[in-house]
């Protein structure tokens, strides 16, 4: 773990007069899970969109394996190995697992014909690697559970070369069991050792279950961080609330 795969140095992003990111530093190593926590409006979305090439930073620099990089488009970022799995997953419900897996990047032979058998096999194998034995890759994605869909989107990102996997609140909007399935998937990807995961979440319990390190954002700045196990429960909750003392909040609540 000598060199981080991705490093962000002093990222600033301004939208007109509004400063969404105010000098964020971040580094992420292969084989680790970095939980990115923060309240609504803390700048999480802006940060991941900047890492994913959707936004260009106003100032600051990104480094991939130590080399400075500038992303002009999401395509640049994904070519550099940054795979983002957004909340909507970019999946098409009516299409089969395989057709979704290879959407836009089909394996084709002569006459633009898809090599369907090969694609079925790859989709099946890649999903098996991170935990789902999906026996029928011709099944429509609409029939899959939310957790299975996450797994499909993650497997797809990895297969197409993601070295940094950015997961945007993958456990929100899921039931308890499905949440655990997604956490298991994250652990399995971590175990491969060659992929860095940025796990964005609201849920401190989820982050404690899978994360190696934490970074807390508030008002566009990193307000704290640390290794899992070193931070206390109360400290995590305090930082998640944007640095406000939980006792104060509880006091305010009680006063109403």
């Amino acid at each position: 773990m000598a060199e981080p795969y991705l490093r962000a140095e002093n990222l600033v992003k301004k939208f007109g007069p509004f400063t969404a990111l105010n000098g964020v530093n971040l580094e992420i190593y292969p084989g680790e899970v970095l939980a990115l926590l923060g309240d609504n409006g803390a700048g999480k979305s802006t940060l991941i969109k900047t890492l994913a090439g959707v936004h260009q930073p106003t100032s600051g620099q990104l480094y991939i394996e130590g080399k400075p990089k500038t992303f002009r488009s999401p395509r640049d970022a994904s070519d550099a190995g940054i795979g983002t799995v957004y909340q909507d997953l970019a999946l098409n419900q009516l299409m089969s697992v395989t057709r979704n897996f290879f959407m836009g990047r089909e394996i084709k032979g002569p006459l633009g014909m898809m090599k369907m058998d090969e694609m079925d096999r790859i989709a099946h194998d890649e999903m098996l690697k991170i935990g789902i034995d999906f026996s029928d890759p011709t099944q429509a994605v609409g029939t899959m559970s939310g957790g299975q869909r996450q797994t499909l989107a993650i497997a797809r990102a990895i297969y197409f070369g993601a070295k940094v996997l950015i997961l945007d609140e993958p456990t929100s909007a899921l039931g308890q069991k499905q949440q655990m399935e997604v956490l298991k998937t994250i652990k399995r990807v971590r175990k491969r050792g060659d992929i860095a995961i940025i796990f964005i979440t609201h849920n401190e319990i989820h982050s404690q279950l899978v994360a190696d390190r934490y970074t807390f954002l508030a008002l566009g700045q990193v307000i704290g961080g640390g290794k899992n196990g070193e931070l206390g429960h109360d400290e995590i909750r305090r930082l998640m609330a944007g640095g406000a003392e939980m006792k104060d909040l509880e006091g305010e609540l009680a006063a109403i």
Partner: protein
Amino acid sequence: MRLVRRPEAGAFIVMIVVVALITVASDFKAFNALGLKNNMAIISQFGIIATGAAMLMIAGEFDLSIGSMIGFAGMSMAMMLKWGLPFGLGEATPLTAIALTLVMTLSLGWLLGTIVVRSGLSSFIVSLAFLFGLRGTTEVAFRLINQSTQISGLPDFKEESWVAWIFGGEVFGWFYDIWFFLGGNINRRGEQWVDGFDARVLWWIIIVGCAYFVLSRTQIGNWIYATGDNKESARANGVPVNNVKIGLFMFTAFCATIFAACQVFDTNTADAAKGNLKELEAIAIAVVGGTLMTGGFGSVIGVIFGAVTFGLVANAVFYIPWIDGSFYRVFVGAVLLAAVFANERIRKRITGGI
């Protein structure tokens, strides 16, 4: 269970029922030598344009200009054949008339598609504008140049030109030869009655074959489904959504042009009113064939069944004495409504899995 999930299952059942009913009600006249030829002719007409409409609907768009495009293309070909090529380029041959018309119709399809994807407006309204605009243009051009909205009495080009023959001639003669050889297909004088199917049957088979291959086997087919299902996620995965749509608007224009070419070279006539309401029939057939109005789902096979069903019922007035064209419209209305409900159930079953 797997079969029920297929979009064309309902259309297949409806087709079987219709074939059985019409066979009995027409006392087998609908499927004698001439009946089969005539039925196949209208089935192919429906099939050609409905295939184009269905492909476009799978990509999430409508084209209401198909009927007007048929009128426009027919007018264009017939007028070139009668009055010569535009800009004083001399006499037209069937080949140059078709080629030049195809250039125009494909350009119009490209323009329609480009307006839709660039403006983000509903294709319903943009193509409705084309429906009126093209029909009007066709009528105006006919009146100004031809002094009449019809052209008839063109020479029978298919006698001379193989190009005209492949659109207006007859195909699969061997089928009727064998039928005659086996003792059927005989007219009152004891000679062979029918020589072959209309050429449009072959065009239908070609178009359906290509459409099926592209949609189910190729990368472009995957892009078409992806575009219609959710174009934002398709775009996020690198599918060239706009080009897919524009290409399919050009494909519906192509289908309309083939429809018109077959009509012109078969009958040696053209009429500004040709193709009226055909766009709605094409969409109805696509829906009955299992294509979702919302895009992303549908099958070319289902459209075959839909075209057979609609063609047979549209032609049934010639074989069943006690019905007229109004029955056809009642049937279309009822089947269409039933199909929309059936499709919606299939869609819910596929997407309701959480």
